[in-house]
């Protein structure tokens, strides 16, 4: 009953008002299927790979579509932020990979081990070798926990250490450590990596949520909040960074720029950072904590980095795929596309970006099959409902040019802390994500 209001945009409202006409206008968009014998291989059945597979099945007739992914569980990762604040159980983020894959797709349940873009083959860990006409790489990214000396995942949940990116179980263990901090107070230390990362808003969300809960549990004055990051601003989009700076000021959260987390001494509860100050002077600093949140460096999976598909002159320590930022097509191997977190584009490591990227790759792939050129372009759309309290969030949507892109212009203000934006994150986001996996959103 209330929920249609939550998701209703002006466009949606007009569509609803237009009634059945809109339904019929929405459905036969998938008119004629394209006949082809092409073999399309998709590496990764996460948000991007699954959404694309679902749409290709609807658009192609006779194609052979193979999805390669060794992981049996599908993770709804935006839910991890809620799990790590005690708002949802770990199971909220878990489903099975096969729940989402459409009929007509062949799943090889093993990781891809090697890609040869010249011979156009993919080898799996189990030794199968597939030849492709088109390859879509969507294996997400890997979390490099080993890069932080003294840290290992078995520390999560103990000694005041949290690491919510590491998965559903670690996210609930993170809440065990964080909730102790919200009850007892002390020093909270929140970090993020120097590399590109998925959902750059997530470190902020965790900081805001834990501060909010602490303020209502142990109470103001009993805890300190420190946000220590390698960057020189709180967010890559200047207008958002300024807003967050003001919120940090109001909430008493101290920011420390130019701080790269290097090591953790769990027994002494000390974190060591390599620092670079505004004048470029480097050094090392040790910071004490009662609760430490670790987000490790993030990189493309080895199978990508060893395949020769990565950029040779950018992100050299990270290995993102060298694609055109508008078409997501490989710049050297035109039959290869990259989707999702692994794509080497300046923004866009969110599930919301995936939703915008998938139709673009679909368009260019289908055009390539029929010997033409696609027309759609990805503009860098990235979105992250930036939670600022339990019960409030800011809708933050932007593009390659750091422009704010508003989904609900004149209705939901982008940089305002709103209850509706929270409702979206809580109820509408997962549903939209699931609909996207099925190729229906």
């Amino acid at each position: 009953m209330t929920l249609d209001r939550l998701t209703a945009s002006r466009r949606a409202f007009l569509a609803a008002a237009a009634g059945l006409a809109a339904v019929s206008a929405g459905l036969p968009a998938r008119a004629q299927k394209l006949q082809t014998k092409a073999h399309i291989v998709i590496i990764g059945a996460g948000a991007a790979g699954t959404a694309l597979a679902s749409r290709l099945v609807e658009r192609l007739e006779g194609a052979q579509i193979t999805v390669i992914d060794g992981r049996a569980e599908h993770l709804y990762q935006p839910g991890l932020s809620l799990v790590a604040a005690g708002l949802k159980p770990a199971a909220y983020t878990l489903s099975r990979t096969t729940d989402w894959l459409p009929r007509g797709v062949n799943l090889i349940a093993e990781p891809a081990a090697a890609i040869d873009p010249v011979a156009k083959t993919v080898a799996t860990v189990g030794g199968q070798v597939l030849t492709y006409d088109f390859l879509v790489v969507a294996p997400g990214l890997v979390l490099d926990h080993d890069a932080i000396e003294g840290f290992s995942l078995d520390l999560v949940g103990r000694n005041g250490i949290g690491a919510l990116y590491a998965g559903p179980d670690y996210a609930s263990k993170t809440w065990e450590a964080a909730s102790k901090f919200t009850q007892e107070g002390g020093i909270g230390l929140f970090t993020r990596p120097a590399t590109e990362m998925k959902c750059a808003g997530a470190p902020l969300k965790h900081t805001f949520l834990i501060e909010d809960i602490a303020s209502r549990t142990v109470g103001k004055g009993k805890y300190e909040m420190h946000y220590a990051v390698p960057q020189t601003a709180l967010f890559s989009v200047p207008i958002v960074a300024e807003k967050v700076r003001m919120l940090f000021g109001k909430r008493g959260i101290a920011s420390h720029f130019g701080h790269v987390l290097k090591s953790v001494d769990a027994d002494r509860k000390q974190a060591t950072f390599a620092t670079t100050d505004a004048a470029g002077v480097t050094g090392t600093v040790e910071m004490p904590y009662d609760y430490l949140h670790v987000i490790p460096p993030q990189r493309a999976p080895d199978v990508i980095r060893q395949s020769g598909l990565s950029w040779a002159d950018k992100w050299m320590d990270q290995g993102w795929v060298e694609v055109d930022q508008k078409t997501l097509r490989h710049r050297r191997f035109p039959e290869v596309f990259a989707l999702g977190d692994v794509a080497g584009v300046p923004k866009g490591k969110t599930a919301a970006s995936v939703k915008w990227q998938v139709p673009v790759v679909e368009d260019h792939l289908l055009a390539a099959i029929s010997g033409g050129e696609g027309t759609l372009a990805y503009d860098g759309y990235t979105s992250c409902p930036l939670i600022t309290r339990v019960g409030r969030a800011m809708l933050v949507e932007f593009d390659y040019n750091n422009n704010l892109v508003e989904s609900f212009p004149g209705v939901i203000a982008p940089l305002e802390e709103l209850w509706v934006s929270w409702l979206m994150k809580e109820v509408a986001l997962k549903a939209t994500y699931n609909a996207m996996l099925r190729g229906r959103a």
Partner: protein
Amino acid sequence: MQEMTLATLIAVFQEMFGPVLFWALVTTVVVITALYVYVLIRDRSLSMRRFLLAQLSMPIGAVAAVTFVEVVTDSHLRDIGGAIDVIVLLGVALLGAFGFAVLVYTAQSLVRRQPQKAG
């Protein structure tokens, strides 16, 4: 959001509740509305007594709807942050109020077969 057609909205709602519950909810709404229309036609007038009780029950529906949304979403009235929040909150309350009033009216009419003409 990119394209938002009614078809997308339906897809999203189905994911929210699961297809079974979603269509069950839609059916419930349709059935209650149909029954309401049915008793109106059957009785050929609005019974003012039943209407009064239905009106008196509106605040209950409003409070129930708001409480339901807040509990389901871990939020409180204190989280209302801007004009759109107030509008959505009122919308929730209104839907709850009217939905419940229609339900109360229809239930009374179905239980008591004999229509009571208002004076």
